[in-house]
């Protein structure tokens, strides 16, 4: 690996944030085209067509897929033979701020002290880059690469997310049924359907929601496990539909990441009800 320069890292991370905010991956475009082709409700078909046109327009003109440009989240995958300079994390942070300005993102950073930021009494910063990134996660991988994934998480899915213990009764199906029940409720309320469901199953609230985010990082719309497909199909049977207008496409795909578990009668499940422009994510490698 070549020596990492601060400015190079800032620039690459900024570009990655813009890519995350303005493009769908080819597999996601295929998933949309597939759903559009088999949609039986004309209104929902119209919505899916507009969402495909939106993705084309966004990529062509480097425009945000949605004007809620989201909160930046970062996952670093660190090769075991890689060397990470001490200024790498500050460079990632500066790159995120630069990317928000380059996009430009909606200026959503809240000003003030603790209480003022909660009440939003002091108003907002004019600088899109003021929106600090969420605490990051580092995952060990083989080799000497350093991969950085930027995910832009919008507000709608945040309102429809849920992290809670589920008593498993020593039966996987019990947990799966609960996940489906959560998803049906969340997707009906989302507003910006079709949803992309991300589940993490772990031992703590922190671990479960980290796993859900990791599931979105890894999302490949061409690959669905039996469990993922079952969840998608059961929620789609509700016919909530694109933009809530009915039809066959309430959920585009589901991504589940099951982590280590511990001896107990419960599991912690985390659901992120990602929306029709999600998962806005892109990866760069150093």
């Amino acid at each position, binding site marked *: 690996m070549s020596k990492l320069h601060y400015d190079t890292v800032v620039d690459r991370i900024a570009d990655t944030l813009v890519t995350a905010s*303005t493009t769908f991956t080819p597999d996601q475009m295929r998933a949309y085209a597939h759903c559009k082709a088999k949609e039986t409700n*004309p*209104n929902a078909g*119209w*919505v899916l067509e*507009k*969402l495909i*046109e*939106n*993705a084309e*327009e*966004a990529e062509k*003109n480097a*425009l*945000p*897929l*949605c*004007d*809620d*440009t989201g909160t930046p989240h970062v996952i670093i995958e660190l090769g075991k033979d890689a060397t990470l300079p001490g200024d790498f994390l500050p460079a990632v942070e500066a790159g995120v701020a630069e990317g928000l300005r380059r*996009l*430009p*993102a*909606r*200026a959503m950073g809240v000003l003030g002290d603790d209480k003022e930021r909660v009440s939003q009494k002091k108003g*907002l910063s004019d600088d*899109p880059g003021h929106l600090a990134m969420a605490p990051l996660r580092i995952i060990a991988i083989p080799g000497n690469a350093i991969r950085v994934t930027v995910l832009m998480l919008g507000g709608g899915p945040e309102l429809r997310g849920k992290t809670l213990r589920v008593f498993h009764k020593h039966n996987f199906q019990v947990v799966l049924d609960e996940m489906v029940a959560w998803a049906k409720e969340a997707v009906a309320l989302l*507003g*910006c359907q079709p949803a992309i469901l991300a589940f993490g199953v772990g031992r703590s609230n922190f671990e479960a929601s980290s796993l859900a985010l990791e599931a979105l990082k890894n999302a490949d719309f061409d690959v669905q496990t039996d469990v993922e497909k079952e969840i998608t199909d059961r929620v789609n049977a509700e*016919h909530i539909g*694109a*933009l*809530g*207008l*009915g039809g066959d496409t309430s959920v585009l795909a589901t991504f589940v990441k099951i982590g280590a578990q511990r001896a107990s009668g419960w599991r912690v499940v985390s659901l992120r009800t990602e*929306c*029709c*422009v999600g998962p806005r994510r892109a990866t760069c490698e150093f």
Partner: protein
Amino acid sequence: MNVTTPLSQDVINSLTINDQILITGKIYTGRDAALPKLIELYEQGRLAENGISLTGGVIFHTAVSDAGIGPTSSNKVEIEESIPLLSQAGIKIHLGKGKLSDATVAALKAHGSVFAVTPPASALLTAKMTHKRVAAFPEEGIEALYELTVVDFPAIIAIAHGRSIFDR
């Protein structure tokens, strides 16, 4: 179907739920912050002195930022509450997303106005916008009342003449 603002009552009467429309002309924007203030101006009879004409108009429930435009949920309290009064004031199409209450469906019918929805397709919608200017309440920033000029802006009629696309 193509419609041009300002809209006549005849055009509105000809629209039914499930119609796909393309809107061309000037439209206003507003959401939680601006709409209650707009109603205040209307109730005080001060729209004209502020250069605002709602007759035959469209209100799009969106913020307007450098990141573009896109519908917010129209069933937020301040937004949904604005629909009956702004219909009375002359607005013919309320444009946003989400299911509205039976009371709002009835109010739209009573005033001869409709509700249309559009997807959160910001890149696409922003490309349909040829001009924007702040029409009132600049202190609200991205939530100010904007006047946009749009060409072939896509929407679908969701509530009209007492019927709602969301009733299933």
